[in-house]
């Protein structure tokens, strides 16, 4: 089932290194939206939860647990993205866009 362990671990390391380079350059100005955006990304567990739902016997207790996991992961996905969207819309600058002066 799924990718081999070696590939998985290698992939995690590559992601962590690339991620570190890119995320460390995000300015403090955007740290709150960064965090809420990361909330949305942690909803990636949704993929695992969907797989779990498929492998469990429908109606079994573990099947309901997988459903609960889908609900929770989905809260993160939509909630994280929407709150980040709302926040980022608030950030404004007069440079290039101001017309009142």
């Amino acid at each position, binding site marked *: 089932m799924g990718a081999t362990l070696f590939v998985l671990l290698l992939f995690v390391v590559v992601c962590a290194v690339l991620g570190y380079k890119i995320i460390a350059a995000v300015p403090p100005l955007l740290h709150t939206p960064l965090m809420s955006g990361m909330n949305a990304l942690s909803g990636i567990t949704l993929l695992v939860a*969907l797989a779990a739902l498929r492998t469990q016997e429908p109606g079994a207790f573990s099947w309901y647990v997988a459903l609960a996991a889908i609900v929770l992961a989905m809260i993160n996905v939509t909630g*994280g993205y929407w709150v980040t969207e709302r926040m980022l819309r608030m950030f404004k600058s007069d440079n290039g866009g101001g017309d009142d002066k």
Partner: protein
Amino acid sequence: MMPVFFDYIFPSALVPAFLYGIYLMQSPRTALRGNRIGALCMFVAVALAFGQYRLFEEPAAWAAMVVGGGIGLFLAQRAGTIRMPQLVALFNGVGGAASALVILACLGTLSGETGWFGWFVSALALAVGSITFSGSMVAALKLEGRIPSPPLSFRKQTFLVRWMLYSIGALAVLAVIDNSLVVLYAVVACSLLYGVLLAMRVGGADMPVIISFLNSLSGVAASVSGIALGNMLAAGVGALVGVAGMILTQIMCRAMNRDLLTVLGGFSTYKASSETVETEVASTDDAAPKPSMRLTADAIPAILREAGKVIIIPGYGMALSQAQQAVKDLMDALERGGKDVKVAVHPVAGRMPGHMHVLLAEVGVDYDKLFDMAKINHEFPDTDLVIAVGACDVMNPAATTAEGTPISGMPILKASEAKAVIVCNLNEKPGYSGVENTLYKEPHVITLWGDASETVPGLTAALTQHG
């Protein structure tokens, strides 16, 4: 061909797209696009997963998606910027719980033939997910004011916290050796308790550290659950979140002069208490200023009028008294008077990283006027006036002059180097650190005690009446 596509090719292709979205978060001009690219990537990933697992005709899956999606949108739409830390804490916890539940749902597939690594990864995902969940719920309740915010610590707690951590490790090892599900449930129980103990002892201004840390853990939980169940994309993207949270935790710890273990584990080196810590600042007390030289509130209109360069320092007190709009009005009034106005933001001002920036952006303050400590600290000596609103510890000179206090060595905004300082704080009480602010006693500092949503408009009025 198809398994290869779903298992390897599509995750390897989507992660660069996710990374590009985060890359665009490096500038406020492109951040909105970055967020939308991330959302699109997530949509593609979920749609492909629906195809891969043939879930399109599974009503239960759709129902769960709609319910979760609806709750998420509702929570995100309802939250104001002041309550953003609570919301992020809540989402951290929900993410941790989701990862732990996924592993719980798949425990039936674990057996004696799974091998030690499978058991170990499952135990790890359960532990991290559970700690994230219970810790975040406590943090969110504290931020919401439902639980007292000063660190709740009883005498034996430090011992207990460490002991809990060791027993989680021991139980995980036992689960691997024994291949026992019952032991895994014990791991969950201990982890939930550990999360509560961990978050209970962290309070007030230490919140940015624990929120960042839990943010990281929620990613680690997602990543480990991805590894446990062979999902490459979940493993990789979870790692991104883990790294982001870790970077922020590092920045927060450095800005408060703490190490992570001090905040989280109770491995503290100084005596943390809510009482006032005695500071020994010989210089300011000995050289008591002559009364005639001391600035008083009567001088405020003149100081405001004559200042050419003004720096505003906001703190969490500004959020508490809802004075953001008043600060924006004051900034506008000062700028109409032809003054150079900037805002200096300390990394740990507020209750989460970047909290002040969002609060001020909401009332329309231009983000080009917000400056980080490292960029603006050298400008204080040629600044005519500093106006602090609800900020205390982040500009307390005792951080550099006194030794043995919780803030000793903490980098501060050098407000005292300005020619004049007006402090609009609620009262003269010390900030969260409990260290008396020696700035208040300096002769060029005027203190206006009271609700900032009243004192700050007072400044605006003083400026406009005479201007």
